């Protein structure tokens, strides 16, 4: 069967995933003269980065000269509820300005300040205006710039190729096996360095801003290869997704709407965020509507930011509470209103794709009416445990970067810190992966054969429809492992997931191997089950509420757990959970966070 349709390639570095992180890593590895393969699950340029709207956070200080890496670092740590890998947060804040400026050298066309520099917009949790942006399509700009840079870098792009297994031989990465969607044929990449840049896990929930690709493949591949996962309980639910009509539920509404002055109101018309100020941020935000409005109008020296710009975890929970207490809209959301705060021309210039999206999909004109919004699954802070300097995992030669990497964002990611994360650590992963090049250990043929045979099994069964199993899994996670969690719900989730594992083993496929989404879904299910279980187990283990992880049975934060990490690892066929203390912050950085920069 298999050997005949297996193609084999040899590379120095194989990058799996072609969003911002993968592209940046591949560009860097190529610049180091490594022979690089860039493997994309979709077509090149379609990865999730394309949907990033608001901007890339970097303390350039172009709009507010007071900004510097220290303030950015402090904001990131406070936004992450002090749970972040401090060294990653520091490297990120220090290197982001250079990485953004570098994009300009590669052709990026950011919006400008009046004196001709890169403009920066305010965003949730950032003390100063910090996000380099292009209207509300920053991700599209970024991916296009990186894409054009990559195709001229002399690397090989393998499109619509899904990786199903990593090979580790004698403790070292040796390669990866995948299949091409078009033909259904297998491909073996042999390489001594593999960079995972596969993004997140959002497809495990019903209401999500994530696409079909986001099934946690990188997390599951790394887990199966023996790497450790951390922070899987921290899943970001973005406060503003579309809620109506049903077909568009979950589609992202950029935080840029609030950055540009949009306000949140409940169905009674009350601007409720003033009532949800956490202790940690008291004094940093406006206390009256008049003060917030003056800040939006541009008077930023004398006034403080509107409370709508609190961190995403805080805003999402406030919205859930308003709805739970009966002040939601008829479709179960709240209102986001920019029409009463900015002129139609300004809205169309700064938020063109939001204008277009609501007009086309909901028949709402956001320059006249409020948007109906509610939380949507958006991003996973948790991921593969990596070294802060190199992005190498606990498996030699295996790197993880971007959303699939863990630690940088702690318990909650600030908006805008993802695009800069991709650039900063993408470059580092590419650099260190290239340095790791060398002849990989050889992969036993029997392992390759067995992997292919297993992947093809669904064709031999007259089993259940994989789409039905996927949608059952999404229902379990939405119901029991969503924004507000508790012990019994999480235990139910684990029981249900166990049953779903059995169903997933028995799915059947009709049709051929050529471009067969049923088969693709059957394979993706294996990843979804791993990341869902990891999320539920980690969430059960963390007996406190912190950032994006909220337990109704443990509603308070427990400072003893702040720097404790929940680590997940495969031992035999069992998923083992343990706690590990993170290294303490150096005294100067503690002082910086406590006293301000």
């Amino acid at each position: 069967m298999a050997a005949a349709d297996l193609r084999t390639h040899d590379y120095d570095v194989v990058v799996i995933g072609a969003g911002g992180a993968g592209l940046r890593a591949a560009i860097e590895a190529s610049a180091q003269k490594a022979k690089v393969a860039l493997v994309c699950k979709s077509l090149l340029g379609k990865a999730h980065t394309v949907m990033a709207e608001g901007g890339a956070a970097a303390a350039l200080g172009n709009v507010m000269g007071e900004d510097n890496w220290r303030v950015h670092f402090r904001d990131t740590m406070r936004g992450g509820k002090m749970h972040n890998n401090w060294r990653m947060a520091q490297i990120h804040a220090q290197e982001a300005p250079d990485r953004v400026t570098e994009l300009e050298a590669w052709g990026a066309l950011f919006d400008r300040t009046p004196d001709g520099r890169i403009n920066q917009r305010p965003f949730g949790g950032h003390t100063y205006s910090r996000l380099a942006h292009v209207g509300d399509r920053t991700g599209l700009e970024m991916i296009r710039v990186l894409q054009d840079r990559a195709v001229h870098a002399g690397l090989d792009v393998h499109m619509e190729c899904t990786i199903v297994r990593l090979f580790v031989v004698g403790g070292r990465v040796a390669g990866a096996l995948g299949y091409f969607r078009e033909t259904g044929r297998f491909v073996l990449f042999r390489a001594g360095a593999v960079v995972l840049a596969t993004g997140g896990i959002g497809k495990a929930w019903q209401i999500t801003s994530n696409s079909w690709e986001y099934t946690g493949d990188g997390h599951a591949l790394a887990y199966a290869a023996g790497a450790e996962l951390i922070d899987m309980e921290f899943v970001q639910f973005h406060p503003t997704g579309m809620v109506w009509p049903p077909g568009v539920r979950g589609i992202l509404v950029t935080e840029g709407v609030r950055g540009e002055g949009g306000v949140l109101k409940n169905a009674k018309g009350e601007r409720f965020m003033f009532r949800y100020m956490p202790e940690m941020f008291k004094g940093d935000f406006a206390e009256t509507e008049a003060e917030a409005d003056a800040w939006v109008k541009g008077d930023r020296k004398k006034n403080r930011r509107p409370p709508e710009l609190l961190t995403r975890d805080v805003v999402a929970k406030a919205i859930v509470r308003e709805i739970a207490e009966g002040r939601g809209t008829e479709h179960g959301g709240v209102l986001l209103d920019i029409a009463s705060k900015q002129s139609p021309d300004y809205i169309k210039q700064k938020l063109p794709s939001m204008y277009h999206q609501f007009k086309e999909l909901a028949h709402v004109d956001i320059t006249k009416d409020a948007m109906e919004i509610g939380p949507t699954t958006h991003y996973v802070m948790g991921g593969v445990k990596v070294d802060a300097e190199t992005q190498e995992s606990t498996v030699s030669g295996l790197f993880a970067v971007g959303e699939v990497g863990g630690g940088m964002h702690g318990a909650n990611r600030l908006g805008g810190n993802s695009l800069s994360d991709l650039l900063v650590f993408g470059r580092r992963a590419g650099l260190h992966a290239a340095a790791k090049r060398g002849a990989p250990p050889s992969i036993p043929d029997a392992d390759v054969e067995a992997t292919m045979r297993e992947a093809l099994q669904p064709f031999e069964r007259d089993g259940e429809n994989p789409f039905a199993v996927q949608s059952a899994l999404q229902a379990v996670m939405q119901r029991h492992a969503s924004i507000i969690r508790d012990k019994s719900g999480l235990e139910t989730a684990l029981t249900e997931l166990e049953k779903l594992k059995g169903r997933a083993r028995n799915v059947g496929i009709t049709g051929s191997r050529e471009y067969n989404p049923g088969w693709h879904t059957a394979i993706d299910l294996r990843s979804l089950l791993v990341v869902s279980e990891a999320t539920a187990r980690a969430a059960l283990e963390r007996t406190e509420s912190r950032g994006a992880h909220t337990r109704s049975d443990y509603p308070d934060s427990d400072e003893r757990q702040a720097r404790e990490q929940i680590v997940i690892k495969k031992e035999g066929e069992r998923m083992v959970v343990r706690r590990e203390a993170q290294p303490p912050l150096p005294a100067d950085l503690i002082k910086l966070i406590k006293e301000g920069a």
Partner: protein
Amino acid sequence: MVEQRRFRVFRGTRQQGELKEYQVAAGEGMVVLDAVHAIQAEQAPDLAVRWNCKAGKCGSCSAEINGKPRLMCMTRISDYQAGETITVTPMKAFPVIKDLVTDVSWNYEVNKRIPAFQPRAPDAPDGTWRMYQYEVERPQEFRKCIECFLCQDVCHVLRAHGKHAEFMGPAFLVRAAVYEMHPLDEADRRSYLREAGGIGYCNITKCCTEVCPESITITDNAIIPLKERVVDANYDPIAALWRKLTG
């Protein structure tokens, strides 16, 4: 508010295929891509379709709906008369791989051949440049391109005459325009556009502009100015130099 709608979807490969009929329960606000997904999830798990963002931002779900090139995710079912059958077929200008999925690899080859961005020396000692909003707005319009290739699909030079080997198509004239009109760029793409790019094939019928889901004014803002530059370059090199210097 759910109503039964009738769809006809192309099922098949490059060699052979047919339109198959499906009934779909269409709820409020559903788009054509939702219907295709419903068919896939419940009736035909092997129905091949590309999609990613489902919000008109990635350009993956291009197809022809009742013969018109469109994004399936941005086409509401309610835009079609009750009782009207909605027919979904793959883009015609590219070879079918399976069902609604076409082989668009040619587009990536074309893009690779466009001479790369080449910035002038930085304006400031810290290695940065100064550009003004009014200067970046022009190429920013072209940067809205989501690479859906609907303009390539509708262009008669490609669709009807199959001139893929001679003509880069509107999508990549737009891409070239990003760099040609970029305030920092110093590369010269005019001979490329005239020769390998085949810009002369475009006879300005503006079909591409009409189908662009991002409302890029492809013909007027990208192609015609590029044509002028190419003509000028051949006619008067001094004027061309002047034009390049002054943008």
